């Protein structure tokens, strides 16, 4: 019986993941596995030029291959969808290239065949004639370049916080965000010390092991999409918009995802399979290869200039930040990243005078989007490296410098929004304790030198966004939870069930979580930006409360004791048998006040603050520059943890991923062409790259607005890994690296330069 009413607290325990058995026996469903009767496989031919007008696409040879069902180009798509452009911030991305290609690797034509090998062979035969255009690759150059990626910019107007975007001509600037607080210019004039440094980050890849995949199934009345997507509700709206259909004629179903990390948000392959399936009237599947992921979405490379005025005591009085984001050929969510990360660009410090300018730029590289941190890891890389460089220059201990400047509870952050429930100080202090910062540190000898470093970062959540949930109680007391949060590995199914169970007073295991299906599960903005625990968690909690209240009301109406009557008894009394449902509904959208366009000020930019800090101990081989992280300590404020085991895995998983971004991951481009599009040439961390010691801690904290005090944590582990390592390198061997990745060669070159014997290029 699933009706026991008091199984004990559900939030705060770590039941095994509900999908454990399915995943461990190879039976968990992924879109990757899906086969529909009569299904065609689509393979893409891609642009070989970074920027060119398309004169002609020659598909004859491909069509001539036996077994090829159809070959589609952008013109064919335009027959079905007159304006075949999509994108969350700008409607700038064509489903298949039209008139022009804007990066090497852009989808040009789709070959459909029953046998994927046939489609692949045919796709390799497609050729295009191009008229090459000047291209721009660097984000800083893109500010002034005469190479213009988009002739006209067409804002999408989808998100309330991007409503102000206006169409523009002849610029590569998709969005510029500015923030002014106090008078930074004047403060610099009177400053005791002024420090200015420039930092760089590289393009990296999400590289989920399940590459992008979508299937479209054209039905009688409805088009069904099975897609590995983090944003089923958005996909439904966007596909309906493209087709000019009502939302209810598009159905989006999402089973498990083989990883997402921000890649599988908004529309990726969905518009392509939808259009293809409607044209050929058969189910169509497009499953990208590992290689093709490199041509789909990357993480923004950025150039960050940061300048601080510091007084004699080591207090930062003013800070100026300029950030250029390399958005690639299509804006994707880049403008939002530019804006949201701009809010916290000066770091978690209490600074009176602040000036921020942040620019989202188009270039002729594959589009960049959100990747576990929404721009924050890039910023923390800059401001936490900068922090240590200042502390060193002033001979202040890096921890003491941070303590002195830290933003405290209740103080106004750069946007003017007050800090609330952001455990910056607790996180920093726990990190210091775990690192035994005040104890002497063994520094190594000979060619092996040891060092340690710390970093701390924070993030404003993405706002305002909406989540809706439904809890349905059956007559035997068992429950369904309907929500469109996508479990892509972060364990949300388990955590959401715990939240609902806590309210209903039943065991989390007794709740069935229905996977996203837009015909069934209600709206959710997307599973991204660590927003689900807070936003969907609140919606789930409200839905469960609504269901519980209705049950109680029903019991009272029947003259039963609401709190103690077993649920089945209530139904039996009402319907005379095991029958009926009680359905509770909850929705959540936090308050938000848009920032002023000129000053970037707002008293309410975020419903909650995320905090993450990292400490590392490292060894540097001074003869080769090789860096080995021997200890990795991850701290975060996750509010009250709903499921401590899952939080732990999120923290170390994020930190290890960022370790790869810090030390070796890099998409290499040669004249706009990706030069290392495979797992053989683009390396990600494996077992041997793992630091021998990894520790995670979510500090004791409470988030006032979160469900049972909880908030998101999926990205916090990434924030401060990179600067902590760079800071530890300087601690170990006295050299500073300001560009990612910190390769062994970069460290070795810095060592040689510091000895006055620079290594030839």
């Amino acid at each position: 019986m699933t009706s026991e009413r008091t199984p004990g607290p559900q939030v705060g325990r770590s039941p095994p993941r509900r999908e454990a058995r399915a995943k461990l026996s190879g039976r968990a469903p992924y879109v990757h596995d899906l086969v529909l009767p009569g299904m065609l496989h689509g393979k893409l031919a891609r642009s070989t030029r970074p920027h060119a007008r398309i004169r002609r696409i020659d598909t004859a040879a491909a069509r001539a291959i036996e077994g090829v069902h159809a070959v589609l180009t952008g013109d064919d798509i335009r027959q079905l969808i007159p304006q075949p452009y999509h994108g969350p911030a700008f409607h700038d991305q064509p489903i298949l290239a039209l008139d022009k290609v804007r990066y090497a690797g852009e989808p040009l034509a789709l070959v459909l065949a029953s046998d994927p090998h046939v489609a692949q062979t045919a796709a390799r035969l497609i050729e295009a004639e191009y008229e090459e255009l000047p291209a721009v690759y660097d984000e800083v150059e893109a500010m002034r370049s005469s190479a213009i990626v988009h002739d006209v910019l067409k804002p999408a107007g989808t998100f309330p916080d991007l409503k102000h975007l206006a169409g523009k001509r002849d610029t590569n600037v998709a969005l510029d965000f500015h923030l002014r607080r106090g008078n930074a210019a004047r403060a610099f004039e009177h400053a005791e010390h002024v420090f200015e440094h420039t930092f760089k980050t590289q393009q990296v890849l999400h590289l989920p092991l399940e590459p992008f995949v979508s299937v479209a199934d054209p039905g009688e009345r409805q088009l069904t999409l099975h897609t590995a997507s983090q944003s089923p509700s958005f996909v439904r709206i966007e596909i309906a918009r493209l087709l000019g259909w009502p939302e209810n004629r598009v159905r989006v179903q999402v089973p498990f995802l083989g990883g997402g990390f921000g890649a599988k948000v908004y529309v990726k392959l969905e518009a392509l399979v939808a259009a293809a399936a409607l044209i050929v009237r058969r189910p169509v599947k497009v499953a990208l290869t590992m290689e093709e992921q490199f041509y789909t979405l990357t993480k923004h490379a950025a150039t960050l200039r940061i300048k601080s005025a510091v007084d004699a005591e080591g207090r930062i009085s003013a800070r100026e930040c300029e950030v250029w984001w390399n958005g690639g050929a299509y804006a994707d969510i880049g403008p939002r990243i530019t804006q949201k990360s701009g809010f916290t660009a000066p770091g978690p410090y209490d600074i009176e005078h602040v000036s921020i300018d942040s620019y989202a730029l188009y270039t002729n590289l594959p589009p960049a989007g959100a990747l576990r941190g929404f721009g924050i890891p890039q910023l923390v890389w800059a401001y936490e490296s900068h922090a240590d460089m200042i502390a060193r220059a002033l001979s202040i201990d890096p921890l003491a410098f941070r303590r002195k400047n830290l933003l405290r509870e209740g103080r106004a952050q750069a946007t003017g929004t007050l800090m609330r429930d952001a455990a910056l100080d607790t996180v920093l202090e726990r990190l210091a304790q775990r690192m035994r910062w005040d104890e002497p540190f063994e520094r190594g000898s000979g060619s092996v030198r040891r060092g340690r470093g710390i970093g701390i970062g924070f993030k404003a959540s993405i706002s305002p966004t909406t989540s809706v949930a439904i809890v349905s109680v059956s007559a035997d007391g068992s429950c369904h939870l309907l929500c469109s949060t996508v479990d892509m590995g972060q364990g949300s199914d388990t955590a959401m069930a715990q939240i609902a169970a806590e309210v209903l007073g039943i065991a989390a295991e007794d709740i069935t979580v229905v996977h996203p299906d837009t015909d069934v599960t209600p709206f959710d903005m997307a599973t991204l930006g660590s927003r689900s625990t807070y936003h969907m968690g609140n919606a789930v909690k409200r839905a469960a409360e609504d269901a519980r209240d209705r049950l109680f009301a029903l019991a009272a109406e029947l003259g039963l004791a609401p709190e103690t009557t077993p649920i089945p008894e209530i139904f039996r009394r009402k319907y005379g048998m095991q029958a009926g449902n009680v359905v509770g509904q909850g929705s959540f959208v936090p308050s938000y006040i848009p920032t002023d366009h000129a000053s970037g000020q707002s008293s309410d930019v975020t419903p909650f603050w995320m905090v993450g800090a990292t400490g590392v101990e490292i060894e540097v081989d001074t003869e080769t520059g090789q860096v080995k992280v021997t200890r990795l300590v991850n701290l975060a404020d996750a509010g009250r943890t709903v499921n401590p085991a899952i939080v732990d895995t999120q923290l170390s998983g994020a930190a290890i991923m960022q370790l790869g971004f810090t030390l070796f991951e890099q998409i290499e481009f040669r004249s706009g062409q990706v030069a290392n599009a495979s797992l053989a040439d683009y390396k990600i961390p494996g077992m041997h790259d793992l630091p021998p010691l990894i520790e995670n801690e979510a500090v004791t904290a409470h988030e006032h607005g979160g469900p049972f005090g909880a908030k998101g944590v999926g990205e916090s582990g990434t924030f401060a890994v990179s600067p902590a390592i760079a800071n530890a390198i300087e601690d170990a061997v006295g050299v500073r690296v300001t560009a990612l990745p910190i390769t062994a060669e970069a460290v070795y070159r810095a060592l040689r330069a510091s000895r006055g014997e620079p290594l030839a290029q």
Partner: protein
Amino acid sequence: MSTAQRIIRFTLNGEAIAASVAPHENVVELLQRLGLHGARESCGQGLCGCCTVRVDGLAVSGCLYFAVQLDATCVDTIEQPFGEDGLDEVQQAFAQCGAFQCGFCTPGFVLMSRELLAANPEPSEDEIRHYLSGNLCRCAAYPEIIRAVQLAARMRRARS
């Protein structure tokens, strides 16, 4: 097109079967066609281990193995059931330790961990890392995976 199909016969998770395969088909494609989805192609280059299966008692990457070469072999996949509740010690330990996130790499890690424990019932942490270094997990559940293998080793010892 004379990509002649060939009939092969082999044992799949203990059951004798016959299948018609094309010469270019690899083991993952064949298994997927047979409705077994646990071995999946990800990198397609032998590097990640998502496509791991056992052929005649040896773990191989299905993405780099021609299906026709399965003729007259014994193939075991992650779908092979164990014991009363269908999961062996390795799977139970992975569940207990939460040694997965998205689960895409998980079948490969489970199968390789099983191989490791068969060859080396008491592996050190270094030996675990070494043996599993040919499997990649982008969710980086590595610390949990190491703990799970250690737990599975203890569970196996306790049983025998």
